[in-house]
């Protein structure tokens, strides 16, 4: 029996420590992981908890991230609660197995610390890895600070393991800006956290020798389409389960999360769409812009997948101009947030002017001043009633102005 960890009502944790404590409180059966900056402290701290007797489980040391996710798939198919952590290149190496995990409907939880993808090699935060896993069939939840990294990880287990979902979930936090920044976190006590998540209910476990099953079957053209459609349906319909879990979490902690988060959007003329730690920076910029008389608001999809199309469009129903801020090099297109939001608006007959900004690649600083600049540019589009600024701009990029139209 695992020992109880003494927790104060307020702890000072960075995002990694917060995620590790959430994994510990979930009493994960198997963690198979390979260390990679900046997510290393999650599994390092978890392994320490296990060695010190705070977890009853197995920690599997593997030779690569491909093996880590493969071991997670095996353990989850065997019938255990499974989790891991990774970043960047490690995430990239896992990609093949990410698709296996979701197709086999294994509710694995992965605490991702977002980091840029090489080349050039970079250890700092951007959303390159998150966008890479976009189509892998996982649910992707976004956390903007250590408290949210803790809360989202607890919720992730409950969402993933729900019988209506049974899909793997990642929780995402920005590398270093969240993962290595210590802030006050209000944790749940061990028993309350575990009670919230509940006991793991295995579905078709391989270790049930009385009822043998085949996992990982091959399906060719007669069957594959039907399987993928079912999987997509589960992902699309997971939105209601995510909301249910968030509501239950609010009752327990008083902290309210939504499929789509927003800040001062109710009376806004213009809106910024932004995900991750920059959301909190943008809140400061919004307050300053409002002092100058610009009615601006913020919108953030809390779940990047499933993407809450209609909920986002609803939030943006009354704005005239929108800037979507993507923390990923879009490589030959507009950023993913721009595309998703533009699609959501078009589907609902809304026609706010939309522009795209790329920011913060490889951990580049993005300050409230930078975002205030974006707000002022976007305001020009709102006043003109059409696009008068560049379609795609770059925030805090050194050199002559770069833009695309």
């Amino acid at each position: 029996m695992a020992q109880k960890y003494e927790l104060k009502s307020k702890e000072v944790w960075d995002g990694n420590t917060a995620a590790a404590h959430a994994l510990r409180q979930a009493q994960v059966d198997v963690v198979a992981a390979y260390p990679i900056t900046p997510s290393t402290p999650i599994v390092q701290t978890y392994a320490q908890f296990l060695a010190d007797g705070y977890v009853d489980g197995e920690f599997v040391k593997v030779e690569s991230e491909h093996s880590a996710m493969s071991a997670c798939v095996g353990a989850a198919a065997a019938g255990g609660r499974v989790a891991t952590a990774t970043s960047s290149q490690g995430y990239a190496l896992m990609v093949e197995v990410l698709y296996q995990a979701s197709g086999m409907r294994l509710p694995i939880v992965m605490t991702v610390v977002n980091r840029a993808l090489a080349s050039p090699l970079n250890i700092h935060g951007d959303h390159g890895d998150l966008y890479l896993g976009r189509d892998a069939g996982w649910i992707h939840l976004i956390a903007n600070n250590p408290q949210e990294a803790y809360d989202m990880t607890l919720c992730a287990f409950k969402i993933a393991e729900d019988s209506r979902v049974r899909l793997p979930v990642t929780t995402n936090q920005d590398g270093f800006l969240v993962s290595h920044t210590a802030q006050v976190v209000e944790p749940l006590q061990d028993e309350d956290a575990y009670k919230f998540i509940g006991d793991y209910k295995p579905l078709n476990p391989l270790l049930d020798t009385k009822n043998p099953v085949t996992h990982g079957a091959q399906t060719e053209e007669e069957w594959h389409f039907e399987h993928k459609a079912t999987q997509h349906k589960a992902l699309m319909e997971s939105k209601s389960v995510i909301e249910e879990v968030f509501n239950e979490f609010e009752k327990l902690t008083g902290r309210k999360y939504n499929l789509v988060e927003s800040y001062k959007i109710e009376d806004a003329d213009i809106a910024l769409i932004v995900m991750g730690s920059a959301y909190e920076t943008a809140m400061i910029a919004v307050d300053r812009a409002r002092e100058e008389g610009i009615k601006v608001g913020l919108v953030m999809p809390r779940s990047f997948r499933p993407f809450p199309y209609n909920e986002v469009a609803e939030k943006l129903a009354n704005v005239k101009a929108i800037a979507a801020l993507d923390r990923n090099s879009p490589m030959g297109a507009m950023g993913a947030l721009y595309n998703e939001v533009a699609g959501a608006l078009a589907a609902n007959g809304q026609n706010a002017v939309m522009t795209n900004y790329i920011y913060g690649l490889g951990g580049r600083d993005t300050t409230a001043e930078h975002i205030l600049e974006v707000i002022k540019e976007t305001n020009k589009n709102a006043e003109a009633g059409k696009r008068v600024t560049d379609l795609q701009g770059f925030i805090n990029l050194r050199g002559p102005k770069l833009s695309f139209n």
Partner: protein
Amino acid sequence: MATPKEMLTTWDKIQFGAVLPSFEDPEKKIRSKFHSYNYKVADWRVEKPVYNRDLCIDCDFCWVACPDSCFEVEEVVNKRGKKQAKIVGINYNLCKGCGVCVDVCPTPIKSLLMFPEQIDNQEALNQWPKKEDK
């Protein structure tokens, strides 16, 4: 016996996560349509295993190792009065000719050997290697 066409179904009835159960009723051991017993792979075969009852010691290794449940057994009582599974033959409708049974067969002269598909089983038995006189 179910064929792939008969196993086709619609997206709302598809096996969850492509997980295929071996039994419809595990308690009563009622095999599901996904059980390899109900799925013909005989036409994959180019070589077949032939079984030699005279050399077999009924260790049942082949019965355990066979991925397609080919080995037919009957329950007998052995010399010590205990129940034992006696191998009586191979169901060639199920066998895909993988040769695993030959691999695991432990008798000094194998009780299972692979022969070309077209050869008669009696002919195969006549060709069986003999113990060398020393």
